[in-house]
């Protein structure tokens, strides 16, 4: 097995290490047996763990336990939300075939929506964003008003994964409520740093996943109002109030609940701590690479941006080259979403925000997390000037030879 040298991990938005407490809870559960659907003692015990985890997660998200539907992660939850709502709403009324979604959604929504358009006669209506990556409410309002009766669902992420821009979720809900259109929000990135009051926000459905919060990969939840009809994606067995069949692992959900609980408990101190680190990183970059451009909303906090993400354009550099050079020095960053990393095309999020092709390709996302330290930030700043110089030189060579 390859040993990783002591390194600087600044890619927490892709995935983050688990809380030791979550690992411990899972370890205990691993050693026990029981199918939560079985009626005997082992099954009942597993079921109790699942239900207690569900209650804790619901409490931390401002939802009722019966609204928490466990599934394999954020991607599945987003697929279930948008396809499930589309199918159910359209079978109730065939006129409802329009899906409204923002131009900066994660691929886990963009792709299922595109699939609905290609295979299920959905019409996609994309709402544009402003230069900071925030959904334009005026455009959304106009799109709804053009024909409220044909909208199957609206989806808007709570905070963007590349830029960290926080979306006006409450306002979107307000716009939709008048027409009783269900609103879903992908809160995968927001969950780590914002208070997600599901009931208070008035959302109809919301996605969260464990592994972005220091929980295990392989479990997430769709929080969905009970009254709302949604067509399942996975059938058979009828678990999770028939919305999601399949055996739910007690260890996974217990790890998820522990991670979310710790995340929320620590939010009031970890938010400011990580924001201070991020600001140290941003100010440092402005100092050591003066030509760098800091993207997104300059202000942090509710209504602005997440405290843990910095998105920076390095003019004249290829993001991929920067990523590789930093990686060689033991610093892990990203050019955007991990799911798309390595795919040589500019991010749809940046293009939607009005970035040119070169700027979109010459950008990096730095994302901090619960294990980040000032030393991590300082190590990056120490390496960055030379790395940028090399990336620029490589870029120049490439543009001359091509």
């Amino acid at each position, binding site marked *: 097995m390859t040993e990783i040298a002591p390194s600087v991990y600044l890619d927490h938005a892709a995935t983050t290490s688990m809380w030791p407490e979550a690992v411990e809870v899972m370890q205990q559960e691993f050693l026990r047996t029981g199918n939560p659907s079985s009626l005997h003692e082992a099954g009942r015990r597993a079921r109790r763990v699942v239900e207690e985890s569900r209650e804790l997660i619901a409490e931390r998200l401002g939802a009722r336990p019966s609204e928490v539907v466990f599934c*394999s992660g954020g991607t599945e939850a987003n697929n279930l939300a948008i396809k499930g709502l589309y199918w159910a709403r359209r079978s109730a009324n065939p006129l409802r075939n329009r899906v409204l979604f923002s131009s900066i959604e994660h691929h886990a929504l963009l792709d299922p929506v595109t699939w609905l358009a290609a295979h299920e006669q959905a019409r996609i209506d994309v709402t544009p964003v402003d230069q900071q990556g925030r959904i334009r409410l005026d455009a959304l309002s106009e799109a709804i008003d053009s024909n409220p009766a044909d909208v199957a669902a609206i989806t808007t992420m709570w905070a963007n994964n590349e830029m960290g821009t926080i979306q006006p979720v409450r306002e979107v809900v307000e716009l939709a409520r008048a027409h009783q259109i269900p609103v879903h929000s992908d809160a995968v990135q927001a969950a780590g740093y914002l208070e997600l009051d599901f009931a208070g926000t008035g959302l109809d459905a919301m996605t969260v996943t464990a592994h972005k919060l220091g929980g295990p990969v392989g479990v997430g939840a769709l929080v969905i109002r009970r009254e709302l009809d949604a067509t399942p994606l996975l059938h058979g067995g009828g678990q999770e109030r028939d919305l999601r069949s399949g055996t739910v692992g007690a260890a996974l959900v217990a790890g998820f609940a522990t991670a979310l609980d710790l995340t929320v408990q620590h939010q009031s101190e970890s938010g400011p701590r990580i924001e201070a680190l991020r600001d140290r990183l941003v100010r440092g970059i402005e100092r050591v690479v003066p030509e760098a451009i800091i993207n997104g909303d300059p202000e942090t906090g509710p209504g602005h941006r997440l405290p843990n993400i910095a998105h920076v354009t390095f003019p004249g550099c290829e993001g991929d080259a920067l990523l590789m050079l930093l990686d060689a020095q033991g610093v892990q960053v990203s050019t955007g979403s991990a799911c798309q990393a390595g795919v040589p095309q500019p991010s749809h999020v940046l293009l939607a925000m009005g970035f040119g092709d070169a700027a979109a390709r010459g950008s990096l996302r730095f994302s901090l997390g619960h294990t980040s330290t000032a030393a991590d930030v300082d190590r990056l700043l120490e390496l960055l000037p030379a790395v940028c110089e090399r990336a620029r030189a490589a870029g120049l060579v490439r543009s001359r030879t091509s």
Partner: protein
Amino acid sequence: MYLDHAATAPPRREVLEAMWPWLTQHFGNPASHHEYGEVAKIALDDARAKIAAQLGVHGAEIIFTSGGTEADNLAVKGIALADQERKHLIVSAIEHPAVLEAAHWLERFGYEVTELEVGQTGLISPESLAQALQPDTCLVSIQYANNEVGTIQPIAELAQVARQNSTWFHTDAVQAAGWLDLNVSNLGVDALAISGHKLGTPKGIGLLYLNRRLEFEPLIHGGGQQDGARSGTENVAGAVGLATALGLRAELGDQAARLSGLRDEFICQVEALGAELTGDRTARLPNNASFVFPGRSGESVLVDLAARGIVCSSGSACAAGSDEPSHVLTAMGFDRTLAQSAVRFTFDETFTEEALAEVVAALTLICG
């Protein structure tokens, strides 16, 4: 004494140990293009290669899923939805709900589903499949071994019949995996579903083997992981665990014969108490002994056994708590009352003569 291994098996120590580093220090996302990501990707590819070797297939033909239910759904819906020309499916009447319900869900898209009848022991004859096939049958889905009564289907023969009709063949091997030959060329199937937690991994991981020549529609769209076949951050620890568990089970080969002997002895002694065997006597999983107890309620037998520390079930865990009799037993011709007296014992290779004697003694008291 835990005799409900068909519902779920305890995670194995070796499996947990193999998973451990991927839950702790090596936590990278395999889609990330830096060292943490690369290390995770190597482990994922390695797990995939090991599993592919065991199934005798190409690594690209293994799709990791969240479990058996997702794998079955992906096979049934994914294959059918990609075949817009042929809109007929055949499933056996005794499939797991993951296959049955997935197939019936397709009816809303204009697909027609035939449920193939089974014999009294749950067996499906190649002749009956041949008769049910239509020119527009896109998929046949028949489980390798039944989860309730342990009946093993003649999969190679059935798959051969489907192939002659140019129809794809999927098998739910969730119960068979770990006991029966999983070599895909021997079986001649185009798709095969496996669940980890029946083999000794924690819950939350499974896989679908899918023939590369097959066109199919993914169920979960997004980041394009696993060549777009199944989006979502890959569960590296789960994949490593599944590869380890399958490897361990392959080493159990010789245990199957010993266990079958023990199973037959157990069946013989329980029958002597007035119980009736369900499922086939010979084409049967080595670890399954299932019965009906005429004149009794299955629930009460379970409760009495539990009081003596013996844990088993009436059948599928997924249907537990429902008053409906098992669809498997009714399809095999049992009437409702008799079907409701079902008790299933499923063990693993640690089952012994002593354990057998203990269960029989308990049953003797209960049935006496």
